[in-house]
């Protein structure tokens, strides 16, 4: 399974940023969490995801990123 890292020093708890989705910009207030994909595992991550498949990535694979992000969110919020 590939892994990711969280750059904890880059986490900002209360920040207003421009979010971009489908070229539509909007203002979002929230917490920024920086996910680092190790260079050595980049190809493994890309291979694990098929954008044409609605069931991709596999739950266990996607959970790796989700848990890393949510662990960091718990850490900075004290949840």
């Amino acid at each position, binding site marked *: 399974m590939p892994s990711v890292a969280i750059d904890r020093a880059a986490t*900002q708890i*209360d*920040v*207003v*940023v*421009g979010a971009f989705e489908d070229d539509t*910009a*909007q*203002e979002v*207030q929230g917490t*920024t969490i920086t996910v680092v994909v190790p260079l050595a595992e980049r190809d493994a991550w890309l291979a694990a995801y098929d954008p044409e498949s609605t069931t991709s990535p596999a739950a266990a694979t996607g959970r790796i990123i989700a848990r890393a992000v949510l662990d960091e969110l718990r850490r900075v919020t004290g949840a």
Partner: protein
Amino acid sequence: MAASPIFYPKSPAGMGGGGAAPAGGADLSALGFVPVDLTDGWTLYDPDNLVDTVTHSGGVNTVTMNGLAVGSNDYAWAYSATIRAPRWYKALTAPNASDQEQQIVSGDAFTLSTVMQFQEPVDRFATQAVIGSAFNPTSTASADIDLIGGMLQYPTSGNPLAGAFWQQTPSLAGANANLDRSFVVHNAAAGRMGTAAYINVDNTGGFLASGQRAGNASYNDTTTNLSIVVGLGTASTATITAGEDAKIKAFYRAVRYTLP
């Protein structure tokens, strides 16, 4: 503690550049800022005539607006690739050891420090104001303007927020009733825009928040004369009623380096 006194150093002797003898001397342990007076030496670019009048008193620029009946992100500084918001500009320079202003170009190694200080308007509209360096101040394309620096934003009622800005993307600390000044520094070298980093303080100089916005691109070339720009626009798609105003109190300091 009140805001630090502002002064304009006579010359940057000792900054480098060949070991020029001190000539009256900037004190690099207490370097001051250039206050922005939009009525003195700045050129206004206002493609849709949103600015009615500008006055300056006591370090505060009061900008009274014409009406904007239909709001658009194009009149904000953030969130649109098209920026038609008014802006004032002049050459981005740094004084040499003889107090002669030297033009900074897009390939230079330099830093620009800015301070924006929140001032309560008489009759608010939802405002975004920016100050920073720019590649093409009279463009309406954010990736051609290439503005990087600081941003101050506030709604029609409620608390202001401030932070760093690049092209069309801000990174601002959350709104804070105690926000007084936002100190932003960005660097550039080799034709590349660096990161703009901010520290926000209250009116005692106490820390409120910090963060950054990466200037994640290069200039179109390394030979273009850069500008210092002060921009005023709406927050998102806000409208403006004729006669509403914004107050801009801002400062900057550019320093050019000779890289070792």
